[in-house]
């Protein structure tokens, strides 16, 4: 409805400006209290005994020595004798003690014996599927069959022929998914077959790939991929839990999901979700890894109860934080692309694989952004023992992007085409947003000096330092999540906005403040913003760039409706109708005669003795928000030909996200994405050791992140104004983190004349690629 629309550009006092985050002062002063910082009276500290084996059965647990230690208050076996453990670092026993050191001593005093089982922690290319290789039916296969309404006879014959996966719990979910009685009977009687490590996703085809490859004049083939990385949140996962009585729990988690935490804890704890109070003021990083309370959150609450309800603090040490609390699935692919000599892309073929641990991991979107008309794709998820994968900022997109954009860049090189021309030649394949990408590519190219600087593969200048340029494009949805908001206006004019959302550091508080203050015509500090508590109106988890679209829609609607009530009360005093009034510059005034006005406080005093509270809700996509963005990035790197070290000179990011609420913090999101991108392109890797089954670098000296000197010059250009603003608000957290890996890899290939196929582009991988190329061609 029009009345909720965003104000026109000339009527925006705050929206779209560069505004400092309102919680900046508490953060820079150290006064911001994160869950990790909270200390409650009589608080106990909990630590966990963790399994050292990647795959094992718990054979014996002896906690007697720990029980006798002074200061130990409670011990709980989480995974009892007989349990199969599927990754190193999984939690076995939890202990609460009076201080951290005592809890650590007690953990060391617990003796656990394991029956060690065979494990796999690598994600090497799986053997090619044989055409008639039987693959036991898993739940995802059954879902696919039900989705395409396969006849019962087909499903049953498949079940009888191949058996069902011994790893999946199928029967219950099959019933929920709508399987017939006959299918359920077949499932009950089916052979249970060990599915092994490789879950093959059914081959997908589009168009006529065989013919398209036959028609292609140039075919480019390569292997590309990126390793498993971790989230490495600086504030570890964990929470503080305490019971006010045996039915009521208070938790301070580090979470991306304030409103959704209680319902996830209620069932395992056997209390109603309504009895769980959740509060969080600040969170020290999440990136997709903190949507649920996790086993350690549930155990924190349980051991608190065991210790008489005392507050218990359980946060992961850095080692498990890196080893078990977050991982982005790897992805690799053999790619074949067919094109005409003039650069027109005809066909795509990919055989991909990767691991997200025990769940296997998702299949990355490929070919990415470019919808190549003829495709054949096959993906194999490797189910192994590296620990569970989690959503990592823009799940599956950096993988799909890296594989697609590097393969396309190799095709451009094979065609002797400038990749920018090659991308532009095929840009219609991206669909409806082709013109946005055209505009972005042009701006990006201007900002990095593409035309002047780009050279064909291989920097031919003398010296060991080789300079190169690369590009990539990406997309994301970013539609707003469900969100409710309450705004209370007091008769003295003070305003409070309440919402059960969370600020991950993206500026959620500030955005809410801007929307409310803008609507009321007030300065920022005239609105109090209260978030981070599940007693406030529920708002969605912060993930998938869904927050900004959701919270701005609900807060705008609440504010517009609240203002309407103030205008109704103020109108008689101004001898006008409410429709003739507006809120601007701290006043309620007559639009056509601004000299007739009341101050905001005078207007609110007309409310009478009682405050008003107005609720707003994000109704879904309408005028206030939208989905679907495009972005483009170009990288300028130097590679030391002798040491293999890659150095970032400059990266330019051009990004659209509809209407920008706060330019300063929007740019911060993009800068941060580029820096995270540099880290996963050059440094980050969860290194697994097949011998021991453990992660070799679960610490911050060997799990490498980018430092302040590693990032080069970063340039951010936001697409705003006409054509963008009127789309409304769209999420921005994910999209700019998708392209850096591909843009940097392409720049390195441009510098040294050969593709380094797998991220991170560490010196050993760069030198290995140079060596492999040297065998064919000694010069760059």
């Amino acid at each position, binding site marked *: 409805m029009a009345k909720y629309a965003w104000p026109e550009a000339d009527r925006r006092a*705050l929206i779209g*400006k*560069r505004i*400092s*985050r*309102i*919680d*900046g*002062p*508490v*953060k*820079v*002063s*150290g*006064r911001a*209290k*994160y869950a*990790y910082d909270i200390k409650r009276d009589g608080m106990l500290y909990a630590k966990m005994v963790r399994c050292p084996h990647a795959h094992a059965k718990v054979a014996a647990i002896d906690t007697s020595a720990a029980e006798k230690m002074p200061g130990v208050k409670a011990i709980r076996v989480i995974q009892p004798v007989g349990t199969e453990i599927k990754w190193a670092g999984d939690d076995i026993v939890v202990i609460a003690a009076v*201080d*951290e*050191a005592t809890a650590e001593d007690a953990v060391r005093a617990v003796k656990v014996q394991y029956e060690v089982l065979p494990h796999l922690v690598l994600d090497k290319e799986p053997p090619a599927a044989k055409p008639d290789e039987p693959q036991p039916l898993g739940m995802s296969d059954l879902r696919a069959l039900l989705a395409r309404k396969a006849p019962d006879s087909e499903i049953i014959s498949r079940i009888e022929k191949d058996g069902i996966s011994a790893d999946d719990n199928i029967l219950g979910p099959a019933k929920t998914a709508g399987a017939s009685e006959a299918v359920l009977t077949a499932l009950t009687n089916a052979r249970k077959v060990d599915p092994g490590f490789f879950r093959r996703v059914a081959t997908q085809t589009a168009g006529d790939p065989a013919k398209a490859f036959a028609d292609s004049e140039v075919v480019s083939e390569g292997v590309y991929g990126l390793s498993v990385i971790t989230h490495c*949140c*600086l504030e*570890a996962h964990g929470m503080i839990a305490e019971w006010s009585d045996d039915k009521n729990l208070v938790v301070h988690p580090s979470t991306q999901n304030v409103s959704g935490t209680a319902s996830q804890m209620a069932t395992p704890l056997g209390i109603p979700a309504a009895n769980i109070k959740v509060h969080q003021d*600040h*969170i*020290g*990083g999440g*990136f997709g890894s903190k949507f649920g309370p996790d086993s350690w959150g549930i155990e924190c609450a349980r051991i608190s109860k065991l210790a008489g309800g005392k507050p218990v603090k359980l946060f992961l*040490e*850095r080692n498990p934080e890196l080893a078990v609390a977050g991982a982005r699935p790897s992805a690799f692919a053999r790619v074949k692309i067919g094109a005409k000599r003039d650069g027109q892309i005809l066909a795509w073929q990919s055989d991909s694989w990767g691991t997200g641990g025990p769940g296997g991991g998702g299949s990355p979107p490929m070919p990415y952004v470019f919808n190549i008309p003829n495709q054949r794709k096959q993906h194999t998820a490797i189910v192994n023992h590296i620990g569970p994968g989690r959503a990592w900022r823009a799940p599956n997109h950096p993988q799909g992007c890296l594989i697609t954009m590097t393969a396309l860049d190799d095709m451009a090189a094979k065609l002797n085409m400038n990749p920018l021309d090659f991308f532009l030649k095929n840009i219609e394949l991206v669909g409806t947003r082709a013109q946005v990408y055209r505009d972005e590519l042009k701006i990006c190219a201007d900002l990095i000096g593409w035309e002047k600087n780009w050279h064909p593969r291989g920097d031919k200048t003398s010296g060991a330092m080789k300079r190169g340029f690369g590009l990539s494009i990406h997309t994301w949805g970013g539609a707003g999540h469900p969100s409710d908001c309450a705004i209370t206006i007091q008769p003295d004019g003070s305003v409070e906005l309440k919402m059960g959302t969370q600020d*991950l*550091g993206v500026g959620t*508080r500030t955005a809410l*403040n801007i929307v409310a203050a803008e609507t009321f015509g007030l*300065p*920022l*500090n*005239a609105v*109090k*913003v*209260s*978030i981070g508590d599940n007693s406030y109106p529920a708002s969605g988890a912060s993930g998938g760039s869904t927050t900004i679209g959701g919270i701005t829609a609900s807060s705008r609607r609440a504010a517009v409706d609240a203002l309407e009530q103030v205008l109704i009360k103020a109108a008689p005093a101004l001898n006008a109708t409410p429709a003739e009034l507006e809120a601007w510059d701290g006043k309620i005034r007559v639009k056509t005669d601004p000299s007739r006005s009341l101050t905001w406080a005078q207007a609110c005093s007309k409310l009478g003795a009682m405050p008003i509270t107005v609720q707003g809700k994000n109704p879904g996509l309408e005028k206030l928000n939208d989905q679907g963005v495009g972005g483009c990035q170009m990288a300028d790197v130097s590679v030391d030909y002798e040491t293999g070290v890659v150095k970032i000179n400059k990266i330019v990011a051009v990004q659209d996200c509809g209407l920008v609420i706060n330019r*300063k*913090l929007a*740019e*911060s999101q993009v*800068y*941060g994405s580029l*820096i*995270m991108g540099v*880290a996963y392109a050059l440094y980050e890797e969860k290194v697994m050791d097949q011998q021991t089954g453990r992660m070799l670098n679960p*610490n*911050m*000296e060997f799990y490498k*992140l*980018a*430092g*302040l000197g590693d*990032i080069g010059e970063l340039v951010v250009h936001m697409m705003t104004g006409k054509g963008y603003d009127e789309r409304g608000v769209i999420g921005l957290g994910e999209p700019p983190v998708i392209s850096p890996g591909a843009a940097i890899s392409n720049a390195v290939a441009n510098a040294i004349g050969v593709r380094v196929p797998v991220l991170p582009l560490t010196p050993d991988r760069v030198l290995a690629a140079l060596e492999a190329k040297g065998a064919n061609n000694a010069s760059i």
Partner: protein
Amino acid sequence: MDSDDRNDGEKLTEQASGFSRRDFLKVGGISLSVPLVMGPRTIRVAGQDVKIYGPGKVPISLNINAKNYSAEVEPRITLLDTLRNELDLTGAKRVCDRASCGACTVIIDGKAVYSCTVLAIEAQNKKITTVESLMNGDQLHPLQQAFVDNDGQQCGFCTPGFVMACKAFLDKNPHPKPDDLKTGLGGNICRCGTYVGVRAAVMQAATGQSAMSSLSDSLENEGGQANG
């Protein structure tokens, strides 16, 4: 480093602290039945009298932000954990807990130090400055204001440590060139990726001028508000 160098290193350590790690472990092994809190004992090691603390809790006193604090901690407890768990000074954060990330940075006798890698008992008789001391009443320190102005923080968990590292850096290098920051501030890790803002903040604090090109359309003084 060859084996001779290593031996020299250990000797140096012995001279500096009075006892080697080996001796420390030997002493630790025979002291299990000490009372919960006691002062240091003196024993003779390597021909010298040295004070032995622990392994139980010992009373310590720390000078933090020009104020004296008393606490009772085991000798194995770090300065960081003492600040956070005993004194409720939680500005310094525990992240890597082994001197890799800088989130726990405090200033000791003028030098930026990773407080996760200093024992509390070793920090006695030194001047410890934490992020909590920088504000003057409700007024942010100019460096802190520069962090806010240039958005040198996102989630903010690395920020207090970064602010302290920048403070120590600027105290020593009041007029840095942009390139000096790369090495001078390379010891702090930010996961959200705020280095662009941090670099601009340090240059603003050093020059008194905003490094952000587009300050003209900013609303720096709009009335920022800190909600808990």
